[in-house]
């Protein structure tokens, strides 16, 4: 037992009262402390060099689950049909003019020269096939220097040809044109998107025509990467600043504010450096990790320093204050640190590499910060001279008065608090029933962002910017199967939210129409094979190979869908699958993939991770919290957390916030972050071991640990609040909800937890024994 811990109320003391503390350390302990500091410096430099090797992979494909049938099918479609990714540029202007068509031609040629762009299709390079009295003509849709008659003829062809009708290349009103680009998924998506934008600016707007709008998966990849590169230092800086302010307000000393940041810096360097040396990559979600490590990690030092300053203020020597802080408060810090890391490690079971990466990065950072808090911080404190002025947490003041009132309230209203918590829990559970999942990538961006605006414009004209790809495996030289495919496309086109559909049946109908004048499919196998042969001879063979394999055993139906919420996407995909089963499904096996279906697969994986990580995190935290030598204490402590988590998800339901990438991770993250409630339980049990009755023990625990809990809540809340400045909707939502979480865990720790302890944990294991020993 330390002299200061129970020495009554103190006040501010000057350094003179414990100047001897400066001479406490003998040469041996000073050398030991220096060795510790030197070791941390060397290790941190080593890890820091590793951190410099880190690379960012912000691609949407990095978000894909690694054991997903849908992702495997997407790779197969990409391998077989060469359909990596599609970008669409919509250019505004009076298209059916000589100058616009000429400029569209230049634009098409320039876009084809952009590295990563494999193929460009626009009205300017489209071809038409005509049967001119037995003379099969395949020629450019627009001749060079087209006359007014040529323009009118081309317009009629675009509006009536089965291959192009419906505004595929030029809008029905002639006021905009689409440029469809097949692009490689292997190139730097940001650089390619920027180059495409530059060409659009120069060759369209710059040439005196209208605006242009660009959409496509690589564009979103590029936007995300650019935003992340901009935000990571910004959010980290804002979080550090806010945490610094809170720490200073708590300790009123510069070292009190800086030392926690030192331990966090160590944690960040070690964690990021390990990733760098292992060759791992940061992903979209990684932006959360540094802020989470910063917020959580600083709370470890906050508790240790709080106890250290308290012991000093009660007259303990520096060495004794360090020893007491490490021995008594260190237990709570160790347990909460391990619990947080364990909760975060549950993400390692995720099927998504990006979630695994986030979990391990954050868990590693938290563990490294924990080591720095328990080893480096005491060593640095041992080397520094004691502060001239220390604040006693128990000294009379606003906070002490508040905590006294809280202690009294928890004592007098313990049952009312428990009942109120029960009511809140019931309300929260009701709220969770109203949650709607939505992990649509487009919703990562602000509703008024230029990117969302471009998507809206293109989708209005093009019918959709996302895709459902249907892989059809069967005998596709059978005319009946082709007719069923066309019927399938007809049904799909009637689904709300579906745009153009294209398949080998579309292409064959176009060829047959040209050759015979009938708007129908070839009627026999021979007609199918021979019309394809003819098209291979005179048309673009790629238009066939994009949709049908050489052996006619695999075909692809490309369906454009609007980029809606995942709930709408789910409805669209479900209706497409029903249409497929009723038509082409009778002739062939069908598989569904494409960006729309992939997003649903991501959502399913996230829901699985959500349930798994949350339940596992709860179990792990209970187990680890039991290290305070009482399973009952662990259960009581986690009550505050469970109520908070229920409130979090209840809020999602009541406020219509979707269950998305970040909010699914919220539970396990919160259960780790919020475990600082254990500090109150540890201190309460410590007081009980010294024989104090439950009410007095809780009052003392609240006065000492309560202040740390209060400032931990404020510090963590401030740290996570930095995320509110993010341009990413999920990161912003996570930030605001985490800020809510830490504040509500703080509130629950200061009200519900004391009340629960006074009701359910009056005689924690060991209290009686300790009292007897005393």
């Amino acid at each position, binding site marked *: 037992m330390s002299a200061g811990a129970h020495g009554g109320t103190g006040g501010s003391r000057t350094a003179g009262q414990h100047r001897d503390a400066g001479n406490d350390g003998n040469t041996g302990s000073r050398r030991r402390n220096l060795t510790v500091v030197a070791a941390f410096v060397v290790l941190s430099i080593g890890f820091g060099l590793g951190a410099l090797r880190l690379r960012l992979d912000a691609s949407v494909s990095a978000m894909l689950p690694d054991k997903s049938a849908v992702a495997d099918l997407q790779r197969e479609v990409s*391998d*077989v049909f*060469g359909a990596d990714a599609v970008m669409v540029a919509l250019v505004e202007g009076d298209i059916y003019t000589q100058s616009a068509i000429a400029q569209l031609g230049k634009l098409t040629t320039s876009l084809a020269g952009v590295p990563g762009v494999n193929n460009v299709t626009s009205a300017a390079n489209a*071809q038409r096939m005509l*049967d001119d009295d*037995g*003379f*099969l*003509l*395949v*020629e450019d849709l627009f001749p060079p220097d087209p006359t007014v008659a040529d323009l009118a003829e081309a317009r009629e062809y675009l509006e009536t040809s089965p291959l192009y009708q419906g505004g595929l290349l030029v809008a029905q009103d002639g006021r905009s044109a689409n440029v469809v680009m097949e692009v490689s998924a292997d190139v730097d998506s940001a650089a390619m998107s920027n180059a495409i934008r530059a060409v659009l600016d120069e060759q369209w707007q710059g040439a005196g025509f209208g605006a242009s709008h660009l959409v496509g998966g690589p564009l979103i990849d590029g936007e995300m990467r650019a935003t992340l590169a901009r935000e990571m230092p910004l959010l980290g800086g804002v979080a550090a600043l806010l945490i610094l302010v809170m720490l200073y307000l708590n300790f009123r000393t510069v070292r009190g504010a800086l030392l926690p940041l030192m331990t966090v810096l160590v944690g960040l360097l070690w964690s990021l450096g390990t990733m760098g040396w292992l060759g791992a990559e940061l992903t979209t979600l990684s932006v959360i990790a540094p802020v989470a490590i910063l917020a959580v990690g600083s709370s470890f030092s906050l508790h240790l320093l709080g106890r250290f300053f308290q012991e000093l203020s009660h007259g303990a020597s520096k060495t004794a204050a360090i020893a007491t802080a490490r021995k008594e408060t260190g237990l709570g810090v160790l347990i909460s640190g391990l619990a947080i890391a364990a909760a975060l490690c549950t993400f390692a079971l995720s099927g998504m590499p990006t979630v695994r990466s986030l979990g391990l990065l954050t868990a590693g950072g938290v563990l490294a910060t924990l080591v720095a808090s328990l080893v480096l911080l005491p060593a640095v404190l041992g080397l520094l001279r004691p502060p001239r002025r220390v604040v006693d947490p128990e000294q009379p003041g606003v906070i002490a008065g508040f905590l006294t009132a809280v202690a009294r309230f928890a004592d007098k209203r313990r049952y009312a608090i428990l009942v109120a918590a029960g009511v809140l829990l019931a309300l929260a559970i009701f709220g969770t029933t109203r949650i709607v999942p939505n992990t649509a990538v487009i919703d990562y961006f602000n509703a008024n962002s230029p990117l969302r605006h471009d998507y809206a414009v293109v989708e209005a004209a093009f019918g959709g910017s996302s895709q459902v790809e249907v892989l059809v495996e069967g005998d596709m*030289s059978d005319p009946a199967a082709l007719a069923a495919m066309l019927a399938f496309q007809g049904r799909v086109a009637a689904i709300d939210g579906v745009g153009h559909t294209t398949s080998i049946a579309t292409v064959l109908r176009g060829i047959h129409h040209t*050759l*015979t004048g009938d708007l129908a499919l*070839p009627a*026999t*196998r*021979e*007609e*199918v*094979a*021979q*019309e394809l*042969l*003819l098209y*291979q*001879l*005179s048309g673009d*063979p790629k238009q*066939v*190979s994009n949709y049908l*394999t*050489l*052996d006619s*055993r*695999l075909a692809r139906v490309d369906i454009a869908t609007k980029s809606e919420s995942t709930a709408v996407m789910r409805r669209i995909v479900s209706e497409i699958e029903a249409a497929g089963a009723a038509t082409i499904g009778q002739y062939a096996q069908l598989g569904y993939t494409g960006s729309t279906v992939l997003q649903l697969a991501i959502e399913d994986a996230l829901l699985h991770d959500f349930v798994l990580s949350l339940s596992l995190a709860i179990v792990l935290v209970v187990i680890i919290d039991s290290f305070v030598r009482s399973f009952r204490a662990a259960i009581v402590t986690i009550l505050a957390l469970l109520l908070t988590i229920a409130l979090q998800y209840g809020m999602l339901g009541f406020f219509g916030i979707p269950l998305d990438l970040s909010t699914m991770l919220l539970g396990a993250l919160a259960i780790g972050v919020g475990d600082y409630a254990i500090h109150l339980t540890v201190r309460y049990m410590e007081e009980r071991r010294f024989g104090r009755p439950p009410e007095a023990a809780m009052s003392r625990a609240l006065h000492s640990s309560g202040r740390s809990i209060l400032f931990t809540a404020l510090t963590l809340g401030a740290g996570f609040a930095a995320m509110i400045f993010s341009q990413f909707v999920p990161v912003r939502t996570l930030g605001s909800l985490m800020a809510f979480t830490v504040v509500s865990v703080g509130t629950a720790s200061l009200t519900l937890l004391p009340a629960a302890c006074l009701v359910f944990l009056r005689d924690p294991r060991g209290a009686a024994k300790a009292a007897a020993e005393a």
Partner: protein
Amino acid sequence: MTGHQDHRRASARALIATAFALALAGAAFAQSYTTAKEVVDAMEAKPAPSTTIATMSMTITAASGHSLTRTMQVWSADEGRSQLIKFLEPADVRGSGFLSVEKASGDTETMIYLPALGRVRRVAGGQKQDAFFGSDFSYEEISSLSGDFGDDFETTLLETLPGPVYVLEGIAKPGSDGSYDRIVFQVPEATLLPQRVEFYRAGQLVKVLTISGTSAVGGYDLPSVIRMETVASGSYTTIDQSDFKVDEAIPADVFTERFLQR
């Protein structure tokens, strides 16, 4: 025996082996031509059949492994200026035909007959660079299988490999309307047929042609196993030619619309 002695004995053996190999290589390097012009002239001087009739089996294989094999009967005359192709297999294209005749004016008339549609169609728009029936060969390349590069390219001899095999580089002549600006081809002296041709455009390797089998028929060396690979897509096409008949008189009515429909 010590390790040092072992090492010295091994070194001596290696030296003898190297000297022997060099002597053999020197014998094999006994070459007949010293300039690119000599090689190209020799290739062009090789006698070529006035007409050829052969069975051609063409297999197109996509990068994904999916493939399609078509078998055709090919009649060719006037150094390929008149060509008739009749499809034999698969069954659903049997009877389809393709006729290409270069007129005196230099224009090429192209016709296709599809029995399922029951009529002959003249085809326009097919360019020399277009894919030959969806394969990795273009019409231009199909007509250059015997290595007829001389007209479009300035050639230089890059090196001579054991064999001897001449490695030549061809740079497209100004004003040439070919698809490639550079080719590199290997010509064994024994056959004077290119065994490997690399086609470049804007510094990028676009296609690779390999002739791995030849047939000696009627005193001619004719390419019989040919493969063309498109580097970017990973697809390739192999042609197996057999049942060669050379210098047989082909009746003039073979290269007509009427015969095409027969």
